[in-house]
Every structure is written in C-alpha cells, then in structure tokens.
C-alpha cells in the first residue's frame, strides 16, 4: 500500500466517473431539491401562529442536515456498489491487479473516489448552510461536528457498498444489497428497537404511601367528609400495577442509525444567557411572544430523546401525589394520584457507540474488499473467471 498507488487509482476512478455521468445535471437536481426543502421549512417557521420563532437558524440548519443525510443515503450507495464487480464484468480488473498496485491500493483508491464524490454532494449544500447560519442561533461548534459526522456516515455507506461489490459477482445484486444495507441501518434499527422494546416491557408494582397533609394544607372549603377521608387514609400503603419498557436494555439497537448518530452528536445548544433571558422577559411584557427554537430544535430534540431511552426507568415507588380540583361543577375537591416516572437524571450520549460501530463496520468492509482483491487468489467464487 502506498499513497502514490492509492492516488493513482483514485484519480483514475474520479476521471472515469466525471466523464461517464451527467454530474452537472445530478448536482443541480440535488441542489434544487435542497433549496426547495429549505424554503418550505423557512415558510413553515414563519407560519407558527402569531408567535415568531427566535433563532430560526437552529431549526433550519437541523432540519436541513437531517434531510441532507436522508437524501445522501439514497444517492451514495450507487457510488460504489458496482465498483469492483463492474470492473470485473468489463474485464478491466485483472489487468489492474497484475500491475504493481496492491490490493489495498485498489480498494482504498476506489473508496477514496466514491467518498470524494459523496463529499462533493455535501459540499454543494454549503450555500444553504451559510443561509441557515445567517438565520441566527447555530453555534459554530455544532456545524463543525455535524459536518464531520455526516462525512463519516457517508464514508461508511461507501465502504459497505464497495465491499458488497467485491463480494458479489453480479452488479445488480450488489446494487440492491447496498440499498438494503442502508435500509437496515435506518429503518431496520428502528424496527429492531421497536419490536425488542415491546418484548422487554415488564410489569412492575408501584407502591406509595398516602401523604399526610396537615389540616391547614387542605383547602379551607373542602367538605368535612372528604377531609376526614384523606386524613384517615394518611400513611396507608397503596400498590399499583404498572408496566414500563426497559429501553435502557435496547437503546443500543438504535445507536447505529445514522440519523440518531447525527442528531445526538450535534452539541447541545448553550443555555440562554442572562441578557437573552432579560430580553425575552421584556419582549413578553410588551406582549411579544416568541417560540423558542430550542424547543423545536430537530437535532437537539432527537438527541435528547435518544439519550433518555438509554437511562433505566425511575425506581419503583418514587411517584408523586397531588391534589387537584376536579371541576367547578360539584364545587368540591378530590385527591388525585398522579404517578409520573421521574425524568432521567442523567442523559449519557449514545452517538459514540453508534459512530464507533459504523466506523468499525466501514473498516471491516474495506478489509474484506482488500482481501477479495488480493491476488494470487486461492478460491474463486463459483462460475467466476479471473480474466
């Protein structure tokens, strides 16, 4: 393996790609679709009743990046899925293998060309990213991390597609399987998570002690009968049958999902500064209400949700009890039990596992490809001639 060898193959592949495809048309369509999406998203934000959204950039950028990822997952498998077996079919692989290029040179050169092409698609979204940033609120750190993670995810898809093209002799089969692999990563992880979560749902018994309010804590006008009832039940233990799903045991099934990785890897937004808070209060006093983009931040929201799944459900019996007015009709009060699982105390990140897994899969795919390209070969797949 040598940088010169990899560069030789990559340049050649790139040149062939550029000459073979209608890249200008393809990139134009890609860009047009993204512009359309961004415009619609922007318009949708403007239409949030009469509340304006502060820091729209957060929402536009997040939505755009998730959309770019989705669209790229449709494009990228095609970039490498016929790379090796296509060459074999055309009879150009063996002549390459007898040169001084090593199997790793050929593998990495092809990978670099495919990944480079994918990054060109990413690069084309730059004007829209700039637009999103201009809409305020997007931290630079988030842009940097999201870009790197997006590039790594597309590289993973390239590597998997390349390995499939090396493993399978028919280009149509490897093409279909490359899309199936992407489907498995995106929808498959969701299905697996959903189904296993249903299986891990377990019953549990929640018990709690009725609280003992002092007489003064109860509303003044509470009828004496109810007052007596509450005080009589004070200190008694009640049990409830509940179910809870143990997503803390299955969260890792979601981890390899590219969308999950991207959203969770995006750094959380910094809390509002004191000045921003004051500004907001002043606005509200003037009657100007703004929807906070933090509440509808697509990346942060998805990330927080996934992190929440990783934590075990709250310990048994930690429920809270409150009294609330049932309704004005009877004019009375009743005690009402509300059992709520406490929000997780910590939210540990999920993306390092997912990204590590995906990158490991990519490395494995490149290793497999190199193995399959290595000559002299001992075993040939059935019915395949070397040349």
């Amino acid at each position, binding site marked *: 393996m040598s940088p010169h060898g990899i560069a030789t193959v990559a340049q050649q592949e790139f040149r062939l790609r550029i000459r073979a495809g209608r890249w200008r048309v393809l990139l134009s369509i890609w860009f047009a679709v993204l512009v359309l999406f961004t415009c619609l998203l922007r318009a949708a934000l403007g239409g949030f009743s009469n509340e304006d959204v502060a820091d729209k950039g957060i929402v536009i950028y997040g939505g755009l990046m998730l959309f770019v990822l989705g669209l790229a997952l449709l494009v990228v498998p095609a970039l490498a899925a016929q790379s090796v077996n296509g060459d074999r079919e055309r009879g150009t692989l063996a002549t390459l293998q007898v040169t001084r290029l090593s199997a790793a040179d050929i593998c990495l050169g092809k990978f670099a060309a495919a990944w480079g092409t994918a990054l060109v698609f990413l690069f084309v979204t730059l004007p829209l990213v700039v637009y999103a940033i201009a809409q305020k609120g997007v931290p630079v750190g988030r842009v940097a991390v999201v870009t790197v993670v997006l590039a790594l995810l597309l590289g993973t898809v390239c590597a998997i597609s390349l390995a499939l093209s090396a493993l399978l002799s028919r280009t149509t089969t490897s093409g279909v399987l490359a899309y199936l692999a992407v489907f498995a990563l995106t929808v498959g992880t969701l299905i697996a998570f959903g189904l296993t979560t249903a299986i891990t749902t377990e019953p549990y018994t929640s018990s709690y002690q009725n609280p003992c309010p002092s007489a003064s804590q109860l509303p003044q006008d509470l009828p004496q009968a109810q007052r007596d009832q509450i005080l009589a039940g004070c200190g008694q233990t009640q049990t409830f049958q509940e179910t809870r799903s143990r997503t803390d045991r299955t969260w890792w099934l979601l981890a390899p999902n590219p969308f999950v990785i991207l959203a969770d890897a995006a750094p959380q937004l910094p809390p509002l500064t004191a000045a921003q808070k004051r500004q907001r209060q002043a606005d509200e006093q003037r009657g100007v209400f703004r929807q906070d983009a933090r509440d509808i931040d697509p990346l942060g929201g998805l990330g927080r949700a996934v992190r929440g799944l990783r934590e075990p459900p709250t310990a048994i019996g930690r429920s809270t009890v409150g009294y609330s007015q049932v309704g004005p009709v009877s004019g009375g009060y009743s005690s009402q039990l509300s059992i709520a699982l406490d929000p997780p105390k910590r939210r540990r990140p999920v993306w390092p596992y997912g990204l590590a897994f995906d990158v490991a899969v990519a490395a494995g795919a490149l290793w497999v490809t190199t193995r399959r390209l290595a*000559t002299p070969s001992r075993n040939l797949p059935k019915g395949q001639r070397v040349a």
Partner: protein
Amino acid sequence: MTSTGAGVVAQGVRRRFGDVEAVRGIDLTAAPGEVTALVGPNGAGKTTLLLVLATLLVPDAGEVRVAGFDPVREPDAVRARMGWSPDVFGLYDNLTAREYLQFFADAYRLGPARAKARAQELLDLARLAEFADRPVHVLSRGQKQRLGLTRALVHEPEVLLLDEPASGLDPRSRVELRDLLRALAAAGTAVIVSSHLLGDLEELADRVVFVDRGATVGEHRLDQLPEATVARPWRLRALDTDALVAALTRNGYDHDVPGPAGVDVRITGDEAAADLLAGLVRDGIRVVSCQPLGGALEAAYLELTQ
C-alpha cells in the same frame, strides 16, 4: 536490454476449479531471448496456466518461477518484471489511448516524465499515434487488441505472457506482432504466446509446448519437431492428374478424389513422402508439387493432441 532474466520455469502445475481439474501437471520452461509457444485445444488449460504465471491464481501444486521469483510468495517482484495480456480484456470507456497507457505507466510506478515518454513510444509502436487522443471505445477490435498488447509492455518486462494476442488482428498486424515479439526476444525477453494460429507460430516461436487436457504432452524446439507416426494428408499436383491418380491407385496409396488444387494422399512421415515421390518420378509422372497439408507444427499438434 541484456538478458539477465531467468525466464519462466513451471513444474507439475496443478489447479482445479471445483470439480474441474483445469490444469493437472503442466511443465513448461521459457528461456530469456526465446519465444515459447503454448499450444493446445480449447479447454486445455492454457489460460489457466498463464493466470498462474501472471500472479493471479494460486496453483494447487507445482513449482513456479517467473523471472526468478515465486508468483505466490513474491507477487510484487514478479509483477515488476512480467507483462501479461489476457485473451479477453476491457478498456476503459471515456479514456483516450494515451491516457490509458499513462495510467498503467503510473500503476507500474514509472514516474510522470517517463510515463509520458513511454506512452508515446508505445503508441508509435502499435501504430496508434493518430488515435492517441480519441476515446478508446471508438477503436476497432484489432486496434483495441494492439493497445491491450502494448499495455503489457509499459514497464519493459523481462517476461511477457500473451494469451491469444493475434486473434482479431489483420494479416499486416499479425506480421507486425511477429516482428515485435521477435525483436523483444532478441532483446532478451522471455516471451510465452498461447495461440491457435499455428502457421503464425511456426514463423514466430523458437520452442513449442503442447498441452492437452491440462497436461504437457510435448515440449520441443521448433526445428526438432517429432517425427510423424500417423498418416497425414500431403497434396500432390502433376501435369497429368489422371496418370497421377492411376499411379497412386496402382501403388496402393490412400488418396482422395482429385480436386482443382491436386490430389490429397495420406502418408506417414518425410521418409514415406520421399519414397512416394521417387516412385512417381520413376513411373514417369511429371509431378509439379508435393507438400504436407498444414505446417509441421500442425502435423505435430494433430499427432500429440488426440
């Protein structure tokens, strides 16, 4: 280039694909400075053997040295010294002939300046200079074949393996191919050519290795082909065909119905042919020509491969 190379030595090469034993004991040597022909019927295992020599297939058994190195354990050393042109190959569409050669020059690590010069040399050699900057897919089959052949020469290999290089070439290109290969051999290259064009090989090769059903059945210098032991057709022509036929029938020769080109007689070996001719002359038949049908190589081929 001086002859320092070790040529090719293969002994007891075996290779099976699933339950097909494609090669089961081929021995072959090709010395530097010589053209060695690899001849055998379809499916004899020639292509498979060349793939083993070209560092693409691991043999199941056997000792192989190409340019002095083991293709399995030291493939890179072999590749630096060996050029291979397969029987069927593809060219990259959308690439010009010059770019094609330059790409392979890069792949053989020639260095940019040398790559450029070498590409031009080879384009001139293959008479493709006028097509140098056109996409390769517009080239004719023979032109593609020539371009593919020159690709194998990019790094001036000391061992050259050519699998049916002459198929699809016009007569002139075949003569040029012959001259090119002779020139390369004269410069010290060990050349192995597999071909079904025995007439061409007769003028090209120094040695011939016959293979049949995966095994070597004969290895000869071309000027020392084995004596014929089986009857082969010879073609006789005389001024008076009827008298010739009568004389042949009288002497009990196995002959065909005379055609416009003459009468074909089945005889065994040069001795018998000389005897026949002497007898006919003695009988007063005025023989114009007497020659074996097909060359000596063809005769030996038909004899060795049943």
